[in-house]
């Protein structure tokens, strides 16, 4: 870890002073839960000269929105969101994704805003030395020919195939959540889809944020059918492991036909992967295993694999089918 200075933002004008401190200094970064950031500082992947500690800012808590949605403060800890009765009731897939992510200790530390900003787990990015376009634009991508079992198959480019690691971002993508931010200029709102950038030619750009822009909240709009949603996560280990494949899904079936459906995939995309092709294929059609399967195939047709992760599209297809079967069979949560 490089030498760093520390500034704690707190008090009445804490948010403004934090914004100013980071905006005015390219060498300053915000520090929230630290679960990714401290790790990457120690690895020499990140190298700010100063950290602005925002943990004392009044950005924690869950508010109910008039439409039945929720506004989750950026500094609300993952564990507090997971155990919130209103989240469990209205958006069980959010609660479930949180509980299945990381460990109890990490969930106590990590903030929801930080979760949106978390970095990829690609070993070549994290070792601070291998060629990595995300860390050092133009350096090349060691993962393309390297050990890539956990890497992405959707949204990849010839410059980066790192998987987006978040669990909770997967149901949030399915729910059309919004990211609220602040800069010195005022407040901004991003649609979830716009907030996570595909690597393309610029894998180092992961979000549309400007330096010094601070996430203040995540808004989750109401979605009645999400009360019977699920998050299904497949991994080698039974716990404490990132997803090889995960599915967040909610479905509404009327008279055997799909009235509405929301699906997002984790573990397979370079960003939390909203499965719009699958959704489009399903809506209005029969709620049968066969149509689930066709929808999954439609979504995964664009998958590009390496020899080591060639199993992922098939695993994703099966997981998606299983998720929808489970929801339509008895509506129970996985």
């Amino acid at each position, binding site marked *: 870890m490089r030498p760093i200075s520390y500034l704690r933002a707190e008090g009445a004008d804490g948010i403004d002073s934090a914004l100013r401190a980071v905006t005015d200094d390219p060498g300053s970064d915000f520090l929230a839960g630290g679960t990714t950031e401290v790790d990457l500082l120690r690895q020499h992947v990140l190298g700010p000269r100063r950290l602005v500690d925002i943990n004392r800012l009044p950005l924690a808590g869950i508010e109910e929105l008039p439409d039945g949605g929720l506004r989750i403060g950026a500094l609300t800890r993952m564990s507090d969101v997971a155990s919130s009765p209103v989240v469990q009731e209205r958006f069980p897939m959010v609660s479930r994704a949180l509980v299945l992510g990381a460990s109890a200790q990490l969930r106590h530390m990590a903030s929801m805003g930080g979760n949106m900003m978390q970095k990829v787990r690609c070993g070549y990015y994290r070792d601070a030395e291998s060629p990595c376009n995300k860390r050092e634009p133009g350096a090349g991508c060691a993962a393309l020919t390297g050990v890539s079992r956990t890497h992405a198959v959707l949204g990849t480019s010839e410059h980066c195939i790192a998987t987006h690691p978040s669990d909770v971002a997967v149901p949030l993508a399915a729910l059309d959540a919004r990211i609220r931010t602040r800069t010195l200029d005022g407040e901004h709102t991003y649609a979830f889809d716009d907030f996570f950038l595909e690597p393309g030619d610029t894998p180092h750009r992961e979000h549309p944020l400007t330096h010094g822009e601070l996430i203040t909240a995540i808004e989750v709009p109401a979605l009645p059918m999400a009360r019977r949603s699920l998050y299904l996560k497949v991994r080698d280990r*039974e716990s404490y*492991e990132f997803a090889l494949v995960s599915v967040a899904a909610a479905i509404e079936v009327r008279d055997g036909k799909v009235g509405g459906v929301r699906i997002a995939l984790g573990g397979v995309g370079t960003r939390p992967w909203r499965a719009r092709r699958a959704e489009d294929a399903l809506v209005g059609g029969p709620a049968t295993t066969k149509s689930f399967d066709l929808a999954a195939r439609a979504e995964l047709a664009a998958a590009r694999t390496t020899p080591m992760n060639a*199993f992922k599209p098939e695993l994703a297809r099966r997981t998606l089918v299983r998720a929808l079967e489970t929801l339509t069979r008895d509506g129970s949560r996985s």
Partner: protein
Amino acid sequence: MTTITPTPAPTDGPVGRPLDRVDGHAKVTGTARYAAEVPLTGLTHAVLVGARVARGRITSIDSAAAERAEGVLAVLTHENLGKIAAQPQLLPSLAGSVAPGETFFPMQGDEIHYAGQHVALVVADTYERALHASRLVRVSYAEEPSVTVIAQGRDQAYEPEAIFAGFVPGRTERGDVEAALGAAAVTVDRTFTFAANHHNPIETSAATAYWEGDRLTLHDTTQGVTATQHTVAALLGIPHTRVRVIGHFTGGSFGGKAMVWHHPTLAALAARKVGRPVRLALTREQMFVACGHREEQEQRLTLGADEDGRLVALRHHKLSPTSPFDHWAEPSLGVAGQLYACPNYEGVYRLIRANTTTPTFMRCPGEATGLFALETAMDELAERVDLDPLELRLRNYTENDPASGRPWSSNGLRECLERGAERIGWERRAAPPARDGDWLIGLGMAASAYPVYGPNNPQRARARLYADGTAVVQAAVTDIGTGVLTVMTQVAAEALGLPVERCRFEGGDTDLPNVAAAVGSSGAGMVSATVHTAASALREQLIARAVGDEGSPLHGADPADVDVRDGRMVLRDAPGTGEDYAELLQRNFLPDMEATGSWGPPPQDAPFASMTFGAQFAEVAVDPVLGLVRVRRLAGAFAPGRVLNAKTARSQLMGGMIWGLSQALLEATHMEPGTGRWANASLGEYLVPVNADAPDVDVDFIEVRDTVVNPLGVKGVGEVGQAGVAPAIANAIHHAIGRRLRKLPITIEDILSGADEASR
């Protein structure tokens, strides 16, 4: 010499009782100090820098930025470290002598033999500063082509004369395997592949070194302080009497701290350089390149049997990469060639010179992989000859070691197989596999065995009784989690006739009597032998003193008629007559009495062979659609000879069985062929089981008396728990979904690759 006693004979002595660990209090309160936790004035911290190429030469090292960094005291490289006295030859630490992990020492020249090879060592006043400065050392290389995996070096394979530091021949034959296979009614010929594995104890390897004049003290995390002492002394070229090694607690090892790797010596050299104490703890990532691994391997196994399933031939070949320095392969063929009666046998090791460290011992080294091949093939043979897999094992059971022809000193395999079957409910296997929602349930089994190793030279212990009636018994063992301090307290208390509360066992320091490293499941056997010898000698001394003392109620008695109970020497036939040890010493103004004991292993030409046997049974659930395998239950039965502490022995066997689960389903280190780097060198990506992966484990003992291996008949429990678990799980998967998987670990994509026909 086998005596089967289904219900263990109760003894009233401390040995065998499920005593709580004597070091439990220290461990649960955080007061147990491990090697990197010793507080010293003026302590400095060292961090290693590893090579980024697999083979080549260093063309330049720029350490200027590191040297300028705040708090940095020294940057050591091959240009300024100085030369070691001599490169010792690889020798297992059980030999009780010099035991380097490989026949190579880094930072002696510019040549790079493997990625991660230590190329620099940064010493600074704090850990954070040393870690940061280590990132500032710039090393340039002239890279050369390398070989790091089997796939790259298959053409270069050679047959070594011997492996395993010369202890195991490269080729073993008996009978005529070729002819027997040709004539066999049934043959099974299969190839098995195994990923490389890393030990990953939670405590990373660490050493703290300081000099007082020309005397060196090292706090080391090791399986044997004596091994560290001899190795570091030899490398430094100083008498081992000037090196003291202390290691009270080792935070797990599993073979990774069995040999002495480079860091303790480097810590000592750095401490001499900066004139202050140096602590050198490996990072988690460095644990993958700086203390060995279980090598990637490929095994081809061919079984020949008659139509009743009786083995007539066994051919077992292994191919694996070794380092540029040593002919190392874990001895995978050994136990697999001794488990069943089979007249015709051929075992051959082939090696590939590769750019890695010398592979090393990792829990159940060889047995865990060799038995996977054998016991998976046996399951297939059972299917071919239409026999229950359990019946096939019983049919091939032997009372003699097929390798030497000698009878087993004790056995118990048959009883273990029967007991394990009972515990798992093996009769359920006859019915079609059960279904539980999306899960298919399968049962599988395998036999288990592990050799009984002994030390090469005499082991020593010292026993002292104080005038207050308490005793201290000492030997230079280290607790790596086995419970050695607890069981030796029990052994000493029993021999002295003292309650355990009045007996203290001390280890972890080379100033204490010399014993070899706790490796190869041999610790309990050899240390109990010497502790028992020392404590018995002291007890005889005390009795002799009493019967010769006119002031003693026992004066003139025959020592053979004297018993000791609760620290009181009494006449066996008149327990009212006697006195306490304490009374004897106090009356004679003796502050204490002391005896040493020495025990040497039985001669090699004893007319017996020794092996620890067991049996493993697994119940697994397979979701063939999602490729998931979850182990619901493991049941193991073992015949490890005398059990010194039922609680700690059970725990070790349980841990070994979960290690087997881990080997079967999780553990794989992926070598990146181009760079020679282990691509998943972290506990986030090298998967070991978490709590949720570990099912309840049923451990049962079959008591066998062994009067040959050592005085107490202890055969060891450290590793046999792992042997046979992986094939039991693979065989259970086969039972559940009808597919044979011949690679380890078995992961989601393996189940997925053919799951369609099984599930739809």
